[in-house]
């Protein structure tokens, strides 16, 4: 039977709640996020990073654009003192979320926890910016 020590460090959970239903946002909207961190099992967190960013997916190398970034190192603002957090930022006009054939653009919120030592844990939550329908080849008109 495996003991806790055999299993290695515990996997934390970050539950994120967006202010908009279906995580659908329009350009220049304010995106507001509340989160709760659970399951750290006494591991000390030395920093938390909040970011709102877009990244590309698909055939090409991944590109990344950070729209909002915040690093918290104040112990009073993180577990065990405080297990919840919130942040908000106005969204830009572009790039809009896009579901193409070989290029996809995704927006997400990331909460990254840095534990004492070199371990870190990232929790990513995708949302949609704009209302661009996915590309379908049948839409092409020649």
């Amino acid at each position, binding site marked *: 039977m495996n003991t806790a020590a055999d299993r290695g460090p515990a996997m934390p959970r970050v539950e994120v709640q967006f202010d908009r239903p279906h995580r659908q946002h329009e350009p220049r909207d304010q995106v507001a996020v509340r989160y709760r961190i659970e399951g750290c099992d006494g591991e000390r967190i030395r920093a938390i990073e909040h970011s709102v960013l877009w990244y590309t997916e698909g055939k090409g190398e991944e590109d990344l654009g950070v729209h909002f970034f915040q690093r918290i190192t104040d112990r009073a603002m993180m577990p065990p003192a405080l297990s919840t957090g919130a942040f908000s930022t106005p969204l830009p006009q572009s*790039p809009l979320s896009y579901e193409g054939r070989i*290029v996809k653009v995704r927006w997400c919120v990331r909460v990254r926890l840095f534990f004492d030592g070199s371990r870190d844990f990232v929790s990513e939550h995708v949302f949609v910016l704009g209302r*661009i329908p996915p590309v379908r080849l049948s839409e*092409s008109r020649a």
Partner: protein
Amino acid sequence: MRLPRFFAKKRGHRRTGSRDWGVFGDGLFHGTLLVAGLCFGAILVSGVAAPEWRINHEFRESKGMILAKGLARTTVADPPGTVTTSWRPCLRVRYLTDGTLRESWSHGPSADNTPDREAALRRLAEWKLGEETACWYDPSAPETVVLQRGYSWWLWLLSLLLPGALVLIGGTGLVRGLRAWGKSEEHRAASVGLSELLDPLAQPAQAAPGYPAVPVWDDLVNSPGTILRYRLPIESPESWTMVGFGLFAVLWNAVVVVLAVGAGLDLLGGRIDWWLFALLVPFLGVGIGGGVLFARSLVFATAVGPTQLEISDHPMLPGRRYDVLLAQGGTGTIRSLTLSLELEEQATFRQGTDTRTEHVVVWKQLVADFHDVSAEPHSRFEARAVVEVPENAMHSFTSAHNAVRWRLVVRGTPERWPVFSRIFPVVVFPPSAELPVPPPRPPASRDALRSTEVTR
């Protein structure tokens, strides 16, 4: 202790490398370059630059008399098995140092070494026996005397350039690695300023102000149209093919000429190198082929004639309609001429050591279609059409390795030539965009009026 894994997550058919090993390898590579640059620089400075500097700044001046002269020969086994000999003029000088009369062979600069013995003799002949001349001796080793001072600029340049380049590349790589050490990818991406200087190639294309990842459109609106507001710049794949053929033909035929000259000189000398002739024949064939391909693409590019496209406004917005003017010059009949609006995705990725770029047209709409178009030298074909960008269209997008591009494409099928296509890139903004006020439209020129008259 567990070592980091060489491969991390899998992306499609490819595996991404381990970041820890990547950082280690990057640091090792740049550290090696930095150390090599510093060592190389230290050797050059201590062996070449410092002695020259001492001669010019620390050696004391005196008067000397030339007593004897000769050539110093240096023989080096380079490469092993062969011997390289160099010559340097040497002069026996009698000179006064702090009240003591001394005699010594002069130490010329190392730049005086030459493999040409005749040249060394000519330089030696410039010195006359019994002549009185200024000399400089080393106060810490008075038997070291020189008759000339100055700097070998190319040695200084060499000692600065080569190690300097190694130190610069290695140093910036190390600084980049140290700046990224322990930071998340979001933190690194959010850090601006020095990262652009340290890694200029990884920076995305310039974005329109207030619209991240939307490309700038300044280059597309700097040419006024004759009838409509702007004349769009052209991207012609055939032109690049022609440039490629031209470069290949020039470079290949230069090699052929060098081989042919060598073979000709052999023939004039009464010798025939059959291997050289055997090599020359296929090279000549490829050279002629390259020349023919270049000439063919050149004739094709000039025979079809220029294509121009003008548009009523730019950048474009989804849901809006724009007037376009298509003009086709040249001579002859074009069986079919089409204008279409296309959306193309472009992805750049690494496959092994290669960097590949894939293009896929994901949406296409025919705007106008013309048949049996005839153009004449003094009367180009012109036609107007209306382009509508779909209401829910994706805007133009560009990042370091990915792009979504809009373009107007003209495809033609001439009667006597192969099919051609000419691409006119356009920029589409997001639907909610508030476009900047366009510059005032330049007044229509006489050419514009004449062009209107010949419109069919």
